[in-house]
């Protein structure tokens, strides 16, 4: 059974329909990259998956459970679904390790010592161990994003959603973050990534989804998508971006 199954998902902001009848299947351990121009609904789709946006219709089935039913425990669900934001959104009144611990102690009710050990483990994994006690305000963009990834990993998520994880970074810092994400992909973490980094998408994605104006235009493996796009909009987009 597939891990995520989205059926006829609709989302509108006011009268503006941003997602139209989205159908999508994500298998366990699959890395899915969502590409498309800005305003095409990629981020909204991602945010619908952990219900940061409430969809207007359709269903999202994760692990065989419809997450849009009224009595669904959203908070418990979210604790298993990591989210990485374009603007990092680290808790700015805390240092790196506190950022990694707060979710564990508050939501997963782990003891402080256990949370600390896990936090250190994941900070090391993203190469931020030396900055564990440093205030997040003093970190560079790339470092912030790596701490944000560690924070998400500390919750030991089944799915990681990444919303343009490198778009707010200086070009020279993009690499360090993509390296970490590639490593996670190798380890078999299920990920949905909204990205504008085409070569990265080509590298890690098992499935690429091209969206345009709220519709999934085309999906396929990286190979077929980049070498042989079928939809005219995909062709146009890729021609523009892969010059």
């Amino acid at each position, binding site marked *: 059974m597939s891990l995520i199954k989205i059926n006829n998902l609709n989302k509108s902001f006011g009268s503006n329909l941003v997602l139209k009848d989205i159908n999508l299947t994500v298998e366990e351990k699959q890395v899915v990259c969502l590409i498309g121009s800005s305003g095409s609904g990629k981020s909204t789709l991602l945010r619908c998956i*952990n219900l*940061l946006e*409430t969809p207007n219709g359709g269903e999202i089935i994760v692990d065989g459970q419809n997450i849009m039913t*009224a009595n669904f425990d959203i*908070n*418990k*669900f*979210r*604790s*298993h*679904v*990591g*989210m990485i*934001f374009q*603007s*990092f*959104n*680290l*808790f*700015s*009144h*805390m*240092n790196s*390790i*506190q950022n990694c*611990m*707060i*979710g564990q102690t*508050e*939501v*997963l009710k782990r003891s402080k010592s256990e949370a*600390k050990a896990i936090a250190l483990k994941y900070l090391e994994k993203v190469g931020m161990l030396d900055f*564990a*006690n*440093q*205030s997040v*305000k*003093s970190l560079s963009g790339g470092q912030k994003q790596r701490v944000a990834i560690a*924070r*998400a990993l500390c*919750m030991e998520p089944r799915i990681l959603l990444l919303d343009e994880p490198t778009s707010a970074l200086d070009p020279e810092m993009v690499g360090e973050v993509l390296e970490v994400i590639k490593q996670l992909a190798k380890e078999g973490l299920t990920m949905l990534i909204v990205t504008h980094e085409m070569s990265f998408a080509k590298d890690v994605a098992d499935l690429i989804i091209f969206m345009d104006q709220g519709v999934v235009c085309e999906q396929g493996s990286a190979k077929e998508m980049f070498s042989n796009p079928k939809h005219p909009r995909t062709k146009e987009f890729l021609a523009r971006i892969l010059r």
Partner: protein
Amino acid sequence: MFLTGSKIPADLLGGSWYIYQRYAPLFWAGARTTLLISLSATVIGLIIGLIVASIRNVKFTPKDSFFSKFIKKFMHLIATIYIEVFRGTPMMVQAVFLYHGLRQYVMWSPIQAGIFIVSINTGAYMAEIIRAGIQSIDDGQYEAARSIGMTNTQAMIRIILPQAIRNAFPAIGNEFVVNIKDTSVLNVISVTELFFQSNSVAGIVFRYRDTFLVTAVIYLFLTFTTTQILRAIERKLDSPRGFGGASQSMPGNFPFLKRKEQKV
């Protein structure tokens, strides 16, 4: 037996100095009461403000049942009425009305009534200050908190409010300074604060001008000292931290109340 005033030097400074020396214990007892009321009322007001601002910040979600929507709306309404009423009427009027109005039900001393009145008055202002503080926090902080599974309340207490309070700290401190001065209106319910005491002294010596110079200087001393202390705390809050292993206090403790170095 003539007026006591006859022994007092006629000039302003000489007269003031004489009155101060003679009645210093009365002035300082008043100043103590003023500080007691304004400090405790500021703290209680801050707590009220935090609660009211949090209520006003509760968001409606499409999943809410009719009942919880009704409760939320009702709480919003109450909070708004509270803020509008207490910010829209003079504290002096509130003091007279509440002190006498509630005396049938609670036998309270003027000082207790004073603390109560200044607290709820400050609470209304604090609610607006905290609301502004909350609004200054990027939505991303709330989203990030929710995305790791925190409830609305957890996100509020652990993530939003500590940052909101820090951002609003100058305004919160300012309320304290304002309260030091504004407690003077409590003389209408005979709270023996600095103004009331001064009035008594002035009545004894019959020299209003000289007495109230002393009063003004004491008020200025109180507010000036307070302002300096608040500035020092503010500087400490703003100081760059994080280098050399210096870590902040654990989340949840308000950083300015407890900023000992803590190893996590």
